[in-house]
């Protein structure tokens, strides 16, 4: 509750608004920073600055940009609260943070489903760049987006978790680490999820085979 414990290098709260300040000039690993944050809590801001943009993108993909704002806040507050249980053998906190975000997102799976259904219905993706950027491929892009969103809406939370972590660039081991499940579970769950999406897409929008650099993008 209180502000009794402070440190000489506390950032001025009045200036904490800028997310990309000079806080991350150090070369410490995430594990080092988190370890230091046990006694110097404000060090945790470095973790935020390093990873919040990526977590936001991930959350925006699954819940929309507005909900992502809150989710990022929740994710980092949770991570901060649990910083003493971060396993220092992992140099990067990325899988850990995405794991927390994923669990928080999964608790809103009805919101997520609604979000995908809205995309499936309208073809408009509030999380993505303006559709005007893609005007040339607009019809095709909307069609594939609709199909994909409909397929995602039909998955359960566990399947979405592995699928969207994978599509966000995580490998099996990292996903296993993020979700605290065995790698084999990730593998089988991902296979099942992919199959469901493939089947759903097959019924909605035959995207492949397709000519390179053409519609479907």
């Amino acid at each position, binding site marked *: *509750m*209180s502000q*009794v*414990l*402070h*440190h*000489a290098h*506390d*950032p*001025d*709260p009045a*200036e*904490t*608004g800028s*997310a990309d300040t000079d806080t991350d000039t150090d070369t410490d690993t995430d594990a080092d920073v988190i370890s230091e944050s046990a*006694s110097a*809590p*404000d060090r*945790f*801001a470095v973790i*935020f*600055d390093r990873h*919040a*943009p990526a977590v*936001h993108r991930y959350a925006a*993909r699954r819940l929309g*940009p507005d909900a*992502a704002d*809150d989710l990022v*806040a*929740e994710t980092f*507050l*949770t991570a*901060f*609260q*649990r910083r003493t249980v971060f396993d220092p053998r992992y140099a990067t906190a990325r899988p850990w943070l995405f*794991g927390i975000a994923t*669990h928080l997102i*999964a*608790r809103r*799976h009805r919101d997520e489903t609604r979000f995908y259904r809205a995309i499936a219905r309208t073809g408009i993706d509030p*999380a993505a760049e303006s559709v005007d950027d893609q005007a040339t491929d607009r019809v095709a892009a909307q069609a*594939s987006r609709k199909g994909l969103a409909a*397929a995602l809406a039909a998955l*359960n939370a*566990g399947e979405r978790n592995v*699928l969207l972590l*994978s599509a966000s*660039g995580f490998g099996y081991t990292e996903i296993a680490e993020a*979700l*605290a*499940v065995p790698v084999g*579970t990730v593998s089988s769950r991902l296979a099942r999820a*992919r199959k469901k*999406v*493939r089947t759903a*897409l097959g019924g909605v929008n035959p*995207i*492949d085979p*397709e000519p390179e650099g053409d519609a479907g993008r």
Partner: protein
Amino acid sequence: MNEMDLLEQFCAAVPPPDPARLTPARTALLTRTLARPRTRWIRPRGLGILAATAAAAAIVLVLTLATPFGASLTPPASAATLLQRAAQAAVSQPAAAAGQYIYTEVTGPGDTNASAVVKTWQSVDGTRPGVVESRGTCGPLGTAQFGELPGQTPPALAPNAAATRASQVSAPPPSDTSCSAIIKGTSGSPPASTYAGLRTLPTDPAALLRYLDEHFQPTAAPGQTLSPATREYLAISDILENLGVLPGRLEAAMFQALQRLPGMTLVPHVTDYAGRAGTAAAWTNDGFEFELIFNPATYQFIGQQEIVLPGNRFGYAAGARLWGMSLLASGVASTVPSVPETVQFCALLWQDFAAGLPAGC
């Protein structure tokens, strides 16, 4: 192009966020990093999937704090007088028996932008599962906070959530998020985690201070030392925050012990987090004023808050309330409400981590 390629495109289409979007989250985090570490022994507990018992909540409210306050009350002349009257009010509190539950209803900051109302039923002796119901916070700052694993820093009641920096005259309304959870029995926990355990603490003010000195170990930042008086204040503040209803003689001893601390000041008129008028005994440290707030008519303890003093070196606006909790009601209950299985899951976030599969909540 297969389905994974499409999905990768789907993810890659999301642009990086405008830095301004991240500002509130970063500010909330930094505010939280400034928060005082909790004591290690106050209230460790974990959640478990225990069968919900008791069909209805038959709460016997022996004490209701939301009484209307008179406007023309004359505040006591000093903090010492206030604390003495508070001690007198506390000592006559009815006792709770083993097998019963301590009921509290507290409001305070919940999730990042809303206040929360949290009702808890805690087993008097820690041998039975309790229940927590929260409105306005459902996430890790609220109900799930009770799911901290044993051995970790004990969670505070939900109002310990990130304080907003805004100067709040009145609390924001609770969001419509709500959650319930079972609190696993806390038998075997340190004494200060249960009402029954607290009955073993000394009720002589001097002995109580010695006990707190010995058992209360706030972690200080490197190079920083907390004065013994500050640590003692923090211990008492924490116990009041965490339990809500204390054995009367202990609560009286705590207020008498505070009388002995040099530098307790009287704040005759304060407004608490819930917007109620009160009279406070305050402790000042490093540009922050910590207030223990009392009903100005009955001198019952009704809440706490932390106010920024002018010239605060962290740049907070003078007068801002950084944190607050208001005890809306408290009492002794003989049963706990049943918690539907569908919502029990909500609060089991950290068990989900172990189990690996949150199926949705």
